[in-house]
């Protein structure tokens, strides 16, 4: 089918929908495809445990929606956009998959969202950090659920500057994600009256950070900001602790740290680091209850991505139940119209550009004395309201915003 024909069909379909024609769940099955890195660098973020979270949501929902079956297929994305494209194309064109969930590497998320747009299916991206996914790469067919670089920079940087960390030295991972974080941090720091006194762009990945830490120490900046992710960040933090960065009076600010990273570092090495997170397992009874169940299944505490996969799957199924349809646009509209109130988010809202905006949290890593067990790692310092956290629509380059 050509692109034009598809657009026409979907236009006709939505026109019919609007005129109150019978909505229905196609072939009486809601099929969800879970696509994530199951074996590579990003495995622990979403990976096999993300699939568990997704299956928990389906089970909690009851296993069927309006009498229709809910089926799950899953695949390893191999962190490769071509492999992911082949997988998702087959899913949507042959296997009638209605929703694609998971997705971490930005190259994968962007490639998949283009295919979903072409075929008018829905995607909910939970693992990716790139804010471009709902900015220049936005489509009417995907939702970006958990977090992105914008609030990460916003939350941590503005809080640290307000506490007196005026001069910053940035260690930026030298790739698009690092550059985006760097740009966001620079903007926030300067807007709050701070100053970036130096930046060093290190290759991705880097194992030994001693050289860069030394440069950061020599700069005399108040704050050493880490605009990187994963092993780069944990290596930088380990080295900073070894070289006594915090003892010498500099503050360490990590812009993207997941619970699994902090767990790997341990409270002793990571103590005192401030970070922004979209969710933490030990915030209230609701989060604890769900996390206990998750831990029983997987043996670990969930990251914000795992919680987001659960929550978004639940929201999706609720929307399917409410509209009685698995048509992408119908469901997406319903999801946009329904505020999200669950263990993951309070008053979360999906915007027209596909960005789910919700409160973010500024956290600090506990000291070994405060930490009661290996997963008791964060103190929540402050809630960053949704409107402040995310990129406002007025700055958006998304084609759906006018």
């Amino acid at each position, binding site marked *: 089918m050509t692109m034009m024909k598809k657009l026409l069909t979907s236009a006709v379909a939505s026109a019919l929908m609007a005129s109150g024609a019978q909505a229905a769940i196609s072939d009486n099955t809601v099929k969800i495809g879970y696509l994530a890195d199951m074996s590579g660098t990003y495995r622990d973020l979403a990976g096999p445990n993300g699939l568990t979270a997704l299956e928990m949501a389906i089970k909690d929902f009851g296993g069927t929606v309006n009498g229709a079956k809910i089926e799950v297929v899953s695949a390893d994305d191999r962190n490769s956009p071509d492999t992911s494209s082949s997988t998702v194309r087959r899913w949507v064109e042959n296997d009638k998959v209605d929703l694609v969930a998971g997705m971490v590497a930005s190259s994968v998320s962007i490639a998949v969202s283009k295919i979903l747009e072409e075929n008018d299916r829905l995607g909910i991206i939970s693992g990716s950090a790139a804010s471009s996914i709902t900015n220049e790469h936005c489509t009417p067919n995907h939702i970006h659920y958990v977090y992105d670089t914008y609030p990460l920079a916003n939350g941590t940087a503005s809080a640290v500057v307000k506490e007196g960390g005026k001069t910053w030295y940035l260690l930026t991972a030298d790739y698009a994600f690092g550059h985006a974080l760097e740009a966001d941090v620079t903007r926030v720091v300067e807007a709050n009256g701070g100053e970036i006194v130096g930046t060093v762009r*290190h290759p991705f990945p880097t194992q030994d950070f*001693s050289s860069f830490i030394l*440069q950061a120490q020599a700069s005399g900046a108040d704050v050493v900001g880490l605009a990187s992710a994963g092993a780069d960040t944990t290596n930088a933090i380990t080295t900073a602790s*070894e070289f006594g960065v915090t003892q010498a009076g500099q503050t360490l600010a990590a812009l993207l740290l997941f619970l699994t990273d902090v767990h790997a570092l*341990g409270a002793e090495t990571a103590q005192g680091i401030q970070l922004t997170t979209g969710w933490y397992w030990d915030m209230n009874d609701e989060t604890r209850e769900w996390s206990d169940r998750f831990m029983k299944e997987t043996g670990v505490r969930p990251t914000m991505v795992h919680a987001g996969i659960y929550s978004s799957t639940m929201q999706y199924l609720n929307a399917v139940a409410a509209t009685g349809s698995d048509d992408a646009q119908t469901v997406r509209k319903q999801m946009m119209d329904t505020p999200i109130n669950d263990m993951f988010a309070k008053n979360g809202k999906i915007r027209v550009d596909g960005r789910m905006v919700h409160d973010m949290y500024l956290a600090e890593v506990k000291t070994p004395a405060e930490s009661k067990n290996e997963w008791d790692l964060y103190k929540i310092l402050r809630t960053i309201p949704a409107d402040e956290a995310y990129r406002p629509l007025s700055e958006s380059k998304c084609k759906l915003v006018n």
Partner: protein
Amino acid sequence: MTMIFGVPLAVLSGQLLIGIINGAFYALLSLGLAVIFGLLKIINFAHGAMYMLGALVTVVLFDLLGVNYWVALFVAPVLVGAFGMLIEYFLLRRIAGQDHIYSLLLTFGVALIIQGVLTNIYGVSGLRYSMPDMFKGGINLGFMFLPYYRAWVIVVALLVCFGTWFIIEKTKLGSYLRAGTEDSQLMQGFGINVPLLVSLTYGFGVMLAAFAGVLAAPIYSVTPVMGSNILIVVFAVVVIGGMGSIGGAIITGILMGVIEGLTKTFYPPASSAVIFLVMVLVLMIRPTGLFGKEA
């Protein structure tokens, strides 16, 4: 403050020292590769995986049995070395005498298996390992803060490197090794068990990698994939030094550490590429590396 190319002298001295420390690390890793290639003509693409195993075994021994750092420094390399000997015995031996390219492909496969299996068991976020208490802190050298642990790394790495060079190049055992691998039939005639010698040599090269892994455990994030990126850097070091030259691997290791350190100061983004640039340039001028024998 004295400045050199816009960088204060104090900063530069610090970077040089860091470069030497990292260089000692590279030297240790490339030494094992050079031993394995120089004596056995095996291109060991599993070297990064062995380095990772050294670190991982250290962490796991501590978690399961409370084995401390000092014990691990001996036990982990021995365990990993023994594992290496098994690989030699069951796999590499079967392709002895074939083109060396096959040893590269075989060990590359072995590395994929080891890393993949361990990723499924331990994940990729990294395993927690604390610095031994006696190494906490450091000394202020005036131009930089030198953590005690880094001082220890440079001392022990250089000692091991020098010791290995001495054994292979200057002792009787070393001469057996070299002779045994060069003309195995003759040595067999002298009553020396050459296949055992080969296994031991491979095991020893692997031990060196694992030893570097133990040294890395307290300072780098320990994950099943930590060796996959360092592998090709270390290979570049060995090639620049001249495949199989023991002394060349040590000297080049340190040299590359310093060059990389300086790049990290003057143009950081290129610091991962600079070694490959040096490699291309060196091989254009000297086709068998800085210290390699003419083919």
